[in-house]
């Protein structure tokens, strides 16, 4: 039986972060993971993260994964892959299945960071090939370079459903509809808006009635639900699809902790059955810690901080550092963690209907039901101003912990302030230079540069563009509004790419002045006689 100071189960964001911190203080650490590669879900996440600098905001998930692996290497963390931890027993003994044998290990401290598993919704035909989890779609396209289908329906409007739908578009698939039984979109409005403006229709208060097909999915029927979640007859809608993706929540994989005898609680806000932990992630069993989604479903940014806290706490538990060092080190991390847990999407607000922002602005019901603002609503928010010349228009309406736009602007036009959940305010007197740094920095792709004085009778709109093929300067096509409807013809007048933008290209289109506050996306395509 091999011994380690700390045994970590799960080489995802929480587990690796914990291992790195513990190793920094000299603990002998091993990390087991059942997968062939470390990093958990980070390497499938091609979008830019939210938060602030300390949370690695505006960095794409897979790049954060690489940084974390580098750090683990640097501190000599041993990671054993294809190793499934099958049991956690008395005195911190674990059994690990490696190949076809079971091996015993003993730790002086244990950290469980096994993450969460996807939930499913059963409906008629849900076992047909072609019905997959949203995580499966993400794995196939972003890790293995295979699209899960050509025409896809997404069930679930939480951040996973929204983000994976967008990634499906980026991989070249068509998302025919985004469906949720809830009456409002569950994820960030900005994630919904970037889908809606490409033309993806949202069906809230709808559910899947059946998946069609004999050997695999060939279609799907959805229907509207009433307040009792029953399908209203006559509201059925059919779509031809070859895939149905489910993004209906995650459940913590806490079986090992339960098996070890940790005190558990049923907490729907945390995603199900989770261990009862103290502020350091220590469970009811001294020296057994939990971090990341296994102790409450959140996202990777908070999982990494929780992991670091637990790693440091394990070092203190084993006497590598004293209590003073512990509270010093953890204090900073806790405030970083707390700032991520603020705002409308904070744990305590889950399931609540929030009508006003912290600042008192109305939350757009249209955004929450259709995925986009009505035009007259946009001007209400502090990021939207009317100015001469080029200026940023920030269509950010929810209190989300995120502030890279503030740091990105070299002219200090954008102010969020101390509270990172505050809505960005555009300062009309700061003098926007039109550099576009804010457009590329916004993880929610909610910032546009608008210039209503571009040319006589014409305005320019600069928008973030993360699709292929990248349109070229001089190309003509359609300007789409926030709902994805064609509103006018448009000409691409500038295309900017830069390492600083990290794959978010800046497309500047020329549209009639009246369209400056309508045009929010560009679609290539000839416009024949219609445009003249």
């Amino acid at each position, binding site marked *: 039986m091999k011994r380690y100071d700390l045994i970590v189960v799960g080489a995802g964001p929480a587990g690796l972060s914990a291992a790195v911190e513990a190793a920094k203080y000299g603990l002998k650490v091993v990390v087991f993971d059942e997968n062939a590669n470390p990093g958990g879900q980070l390497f499938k996440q091609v979008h830019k993260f939210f938060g602030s600098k300390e949370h690695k905001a505006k960095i794409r998930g897979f790049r954060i994964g690489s940084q974390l692996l580098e750090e683990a290497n640097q501190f000599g963390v041993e990671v054993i892959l294809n190793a499934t931890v099958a049991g956690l027993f008395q005195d911190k003994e674990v059994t690990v299945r490696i190949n076809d044998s079971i091996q015993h290990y003993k730790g002086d401290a244990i950290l469980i960071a096994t993450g969460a598993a996807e939930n499913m919704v059963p409906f008629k035909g849900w076992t*047909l090939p072609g019905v*997959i989890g949203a995580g499966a779609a993400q794995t*196939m396209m972003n890790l293995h370079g*295979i699209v899960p289908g*050509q025409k896809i329906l997404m069930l679930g409007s939480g951040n996973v459903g929204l983000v994976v739908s967008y990634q499906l578009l*980026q991989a070249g698939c068509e998302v025919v509809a985004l469906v949720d039984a809830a009456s409002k979109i569950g994820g960030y409005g900005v994630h919904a808006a970037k889908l809606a403006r490409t033309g993806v229709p949202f069906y809230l208060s709808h559910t899947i009635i059946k998946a069609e097909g004999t*050997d*695999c999915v060939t279609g799907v029927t959805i229907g509207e639900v009433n307040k009792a979640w029953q399908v209203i007859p006559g509201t059925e809608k059919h779509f031809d699809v070859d895939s149905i993706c489910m993004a209906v929540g995650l459940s913590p994989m806490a079986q090992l902790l339960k098996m070890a005898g940790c005190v558990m609680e049923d907490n729907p806000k945390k995603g199900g059955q989770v261990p009862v932990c103290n502020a350091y992630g220590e469970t009811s069993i001294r020296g057994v810690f939990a971090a990341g989604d296994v102790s409450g479903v959140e996202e990777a940014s908070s999982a990494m901080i929780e992991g670091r806290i637990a790693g440091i706490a394990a070092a203190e538990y084993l006497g590598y550092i004293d209590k003073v060092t512990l509270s010093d080190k953890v204090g900073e991390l806790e405030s970083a963690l707390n700032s991520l847990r603020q705002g409308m999407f904070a744990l305590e607000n889950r399931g609540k209907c929030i009508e006003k922002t912290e600042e008192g602005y109305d939350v757009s019901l249209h955004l929450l039901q259709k995925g986009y603002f009505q035009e007259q609503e946009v001007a209400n928010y502090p990021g939207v101003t009317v100015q001469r010349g080029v200026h940023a228009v920030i269509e950010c309406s929810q209190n989300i912990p995120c502030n890279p736009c503030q740091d990105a602007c070299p002219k200090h036009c954008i102010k969020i302030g101390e509270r990172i959940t505050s809505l960005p305010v555009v300062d009309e007197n700061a003098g926007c230079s039109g550099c576009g740094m804010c457009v590329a920095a916004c993880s929610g792709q909610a910032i546009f540069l608008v210039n209503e004085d571009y040319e006589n009778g014409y305005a320019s709109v600069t928008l973030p563009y993360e699709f*292929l093929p990248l349109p070229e300067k001089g190309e003509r096509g359609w300007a789409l509004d926030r709902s994805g409807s064609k509103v006018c013809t448009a000409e691409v007048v500038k295309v900017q790419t830069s390492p600083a933008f990290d794959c978010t290209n800046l497309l500047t289109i020329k549209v009639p002045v009246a369209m400056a506050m309508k045009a929010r996306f560009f679609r290539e395509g000839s416009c024949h006689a219609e445009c003249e």
Partner: protein
Amino acid sequence: MNSRIEEHPILGKIEKGRRVTFWYDDKKLEGCEGEPIAAALKAAGVMVHRHTQKYGAPRGIFCAIGRCTDCVMVVDGKPNIRTCITPLAEGMTVQTQYGVSAKCANKAEGMA
């Protein structure tokens, strides 16, 4: 219908292992070495991996991370192999699984 992403707006050119051939039931297919068997099958247009024991219902990829076991097939004669996490190798024999076995032996090795 091409399921392979050649170039991705964020990930760039998708790098894969060398092209190898493998047996899928009695067909010879191509895939990329080291990618999950399920990915190679998907790229070749195969959706059905197995049929259930009781009802013969078709099943395919579901979770793609080795948890749900819906995608299991008979690989090199061994049943219940999770094709979504098992890397493809040159000359592999991959058979549709009926219940817990391949329906009939084919010409490939390992099916004594």
